[in-house]
């Protein structure tokens, strides 16, 4: 069988030769009905019968993995697709550096590996749950289609993690796979494991910010797992990254189109000062200061996903060869880090300072720094749009210490500029930095659905290019009445 062609001979599309892996096939088939129930309960509400113009991975070949066609989402072909195996791949970091990459789980790392897979797996269905009501307020069919694309691919990423659990982790793995369907975002009884995945995604601006900031954390995590010495995990994550790129695209262009529309509307109305919030809002567009507050919110929530700056788990994962750094193989050092240090932002004697910590335990901080750099590139592109339209406003990421629930700065209040303030002061200035209830109400007031092909809501500009190069009035979603 050609590994580059997805195997459709069984119920579950895959390129891992499932037909000859009776045990895993059986486990997955057992899990499949539960997954479909979950999708029907927690997937996009109200659009399960609609025909959506989606891409489906039919092969992991770079040319062939994105095939577009109309499909009903419950019939989407969620498969198990891993990047092709590289001959002779090695463990590229940690104490096993230079050894052959593992094709089976090493017994001593089984618990650690399973934990990594479960945490990653838990985030995938969570965002589907968080976004399930958004279809009803989509600003266009184009955006609605993008939302559903992101949703089905997160669903497929769940499949990918479940495959690893069922193939490599025995009975415990199967139980964990069941629990991935049992936990629900924001549920009081069984919430998702990480904080940001229990927050609401109430509107489309939140959705775009989420895909820009929070999915980018996902990207960084996948990048570092793609370095794993456990080859099946590496291959799985490498393929997931090709899809994740689209999610970043949806977020970055979504926000970009909103602020483009705002700037255009301001110009048409002759408003120069972006801080004239009421006048700008009266135009039916979202003012830039509120967008900045959303940036502050989603960036800070996403920073928490990296965990404590100094982390034993991160050190263990790295040294064991299970989770590397961003672009590990391109870095020029010994890839062991046992004697190295890395500067970490800490709260020392009443001031925020950079303190050298052992590089191994500072890996969360390092990945977070890489993440911040990645975010800044997007921010720069947004600023270019604003500048090109002649509006005097610059977006910026808030300070690391701002609005944190995890890590070094969790027990204090800081402004977006990084000034530490008292509880009382924070109460006074909070709404200057984070969306207020009124801000949320205003955004919500704009969320009226637009479902005519080629039309867009007042607060968002059309995209420059259609998906799959389709024309502007293409009917991306055929809504079932």
């Amino acid at each position, binding site marked *: 069988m050609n590994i580059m062609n997805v195997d459709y001979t069984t119920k579950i599309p895959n390129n891992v030769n499932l037909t000859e892996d009776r045990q895993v096939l059986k486990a997955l088939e057992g899990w499949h009905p539960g997954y479909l129930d979950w999708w029907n309960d927690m997937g996009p509400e109200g659009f399960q019968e609609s025909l959506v113009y989606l891409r489906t991975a039919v092969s992991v070949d770079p040319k062939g993995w994105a095939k577009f066609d109309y499909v009903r989402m419950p019939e989407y072909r969620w498969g198990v697709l891993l990047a092709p195996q590289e001959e002779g791949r090695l463990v590229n970091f940690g104490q096993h550096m230079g050894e052959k990459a593992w094709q089976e789980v090493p017994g001593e790392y089984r618990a650690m590996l399973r934990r990594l897979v479960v945490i990653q797996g838990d985030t995938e269905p969570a965002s589907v749950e968080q976004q399930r009501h958004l279809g009803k307020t989509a600003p266009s069919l184009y955006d609605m289609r993008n939302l559903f694309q992101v949703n089905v691919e997160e669903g497929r990423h769940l499949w990918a993690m479940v495959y690893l659990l069922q193939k490599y982790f025995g009975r415990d793995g199967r139980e964990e796979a069941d629990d991935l369907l049992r*936990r629900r975002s924001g549920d009081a009884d069984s919430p998702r494991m990480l904080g940001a995945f229990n927050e609401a995604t109430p509107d489309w601006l939140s959705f775009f910010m989420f895909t820009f900031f929070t999915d980018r954390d996902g990207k960084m995590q996948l990048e570092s797992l793609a370095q794993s010495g456990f080859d099946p995990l590496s291959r799985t994550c490498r393929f997931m990254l090709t899809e994740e790129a689209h999610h970043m695209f949806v977020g970055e262009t979504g926000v970009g189109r909103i602020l483009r529309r705002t700037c255009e509307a301001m110009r048409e109305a002759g408003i120069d000062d972006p801080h004239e919030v009421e006048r700008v809002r009266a135009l039916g567009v979202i003012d830039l200061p509120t967008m900045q507050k959303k940036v502050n919110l989603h960036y800070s929530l996403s920073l928490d996903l990296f965990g404590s700056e100094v982390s034993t788990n991160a*050190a263990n994962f790295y040294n064991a060869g299970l989770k590397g750094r961003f672009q590990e193989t391109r870095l020029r050092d010994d890839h062991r880090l046992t004697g190295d240090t890395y500067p970490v932002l800490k709260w020392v004697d009443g001031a925020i300072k950079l303190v050298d910590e052992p590089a191994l335990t500072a890996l969360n901080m390092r990945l977070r720094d890489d993440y911040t750099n990645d975010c800044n590139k997007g921010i720069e592109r947004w600023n270019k749009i604003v500048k090109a339209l002649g509006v005097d406003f610059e977006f910026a990421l808030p300070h690391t210490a701002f609005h944190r629930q995890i890590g070094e700065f969790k027990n204090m209040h800081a402004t977006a500029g990084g000034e530490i303030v008292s509880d009382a002061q924070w109460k006074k200035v909070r709404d200057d930095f984070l969306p207020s209830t009124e801000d949320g109400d205003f955004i919500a007031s704009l969320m009226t659905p637009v479902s005519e092909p080629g039309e867009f809501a007042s607060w968002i500009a059309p995209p420059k290019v259609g998906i799959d190069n389709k024309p502007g009035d293409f009917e991306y979603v055929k809504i079932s009445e």
Partner: protein
Amino acid sequence: MAAEDKKLANGATHIDFQTDPSRYRHWKLAVDGEIATLTMDVDENGGLFDGYQLKLNSYDLGVDIELADALQRLRFEHPQVKAVLLRSGKNRVFCAGANIRMLAGATHAHKVNFCKFTNETRNGIEDSSANSGQHFICVVNGTAAGGGYELALAADHIVLVDDGSAAVSLPEVPLLAVLPGTGGLTRVTDKRKVRRDHADYFCTFEEGVKGKRAVQWRLVDEVVPNSKLEARVADRARAFAAASKRDAQGEGIKLTPLMRTIEGDSIRYRFVGADIDRAARTATISIKAPEVPPPADPEAVVVQGAAFWPLQVARELDDAILHLRLNELEIAVLVFKSEGDPAQVLAYDAVLDACKDNWFVNEVRHFWKRVLKRVDVTSRTLVALIEPGSCFAGSLAELVFAADRAYMLIGSRQGDNRAPPKLMLSAMNFGPYPMSHGLTRLQSRFQADPSELDRVKARLGQPLDAETAEELGLVTFALDDIDWDDEVRVFFEARTSFSPDSLTGLEANLRFVGPETMESKIFARLTAWQNWIFQRPNAVGEAGALQRYGTGERPQFDMTRV
């Protein structure tokens, strides 16, 4: 972080066991009628020593000192409380157990003392339930790992949140190359009766067990979803309170701060004093008899409260023993002496016996029992010197029976016009103060021939001189004035020349004669196994698990099975 460099936080010069709720940094004690809530919310930056942070509700000795204080106050200050909820103030974390960085940086002696104290505290929880009708319900709202689960194990009932994440675990073996040292293994098998193969799996699986399996395997009593948790916990609290036999009316008594001065090598309380002789490596603990007769009735006893002599002496003695254990590591011998009128001591014992149905007297008796147990497991040579002017009677005589050796002077000393010393027994020597293995010190003493116990009991209340005491088997040697000084001196000199380790092992072996209980097994296994493992390079060597923990580097083990 070398062990010798460990500095107490905030410039403290010694570890202090005195605290009160207004000074707690890690616990909150709230009382609502019959139900109390003890909330663990550890201040990360409130470590007893510099150099580590108490993350995720992990604990060090300082955290446990507050817990021990709270348990004590629940018994004395809150007579109405019949059920205690043990909970976490942290989100989705119950308790991550003993702080590993603290352990990695601590001296071996501190680690052992820490484990011993935390064991005593957890035994105290079970003692509160068994003897004071204060039943504990532990609400595990998230991770309960290692010492966190061991804390839960001390409760009568464990409720685990069923959220797909919350789990109980004993990850010491896979993560740290040590054992759960706070009774975890013993309580899992002997108290909760977890099947041994399940226990084997559980103790080698670092992530632990959650949900239904935790109930099926008996690791917890029930799992409850978050949305039903508060209602269920309230139900359980009411049910345990209703089943409590605690019968206490009126106000509690206030455990007022102990008056203590530490000057040079001497520690002074109202009735207890400790004098350290560093050259001789001894500490002499002297206890004074009460100066006035006891109150006539239980109501008057309660009015005395913390000033009631047996309670005050027990608190002072407890503090002194703990102080010497933790802060004076090179002292080899604790010498017990007493001073005053033995008849007064017996008069108070008579009250303890006659009024035992009064809740407060009951608490005092059980506190004395616990203090004496603390003495039993103190790894120093214990010696009682019974000299003229002493008052080793009843409760105080228990110190004589707890000692590894007891010397009693025959007659008086030349030039001393005080009467020859007398030893006296009371009802308190025949039941209320069992050791951890369930026998009284006198029962332990007369294992060879229980009829000797009856012979001794027949002398209850009588003053016994040295020769009689020796003949009855109550003291090791009766010595006259001519031999006394030399014999005692030579004994101390020989004793302090021995290896402290071999003495610790010897004494612990010989003190607990006869049967085992869960409680004695916990201490015995701590001594035998944990202390061995805690010394081995696989745990504490430079490449051992405790040193490597948190660095990301894997420990290197010597794979020889010993």
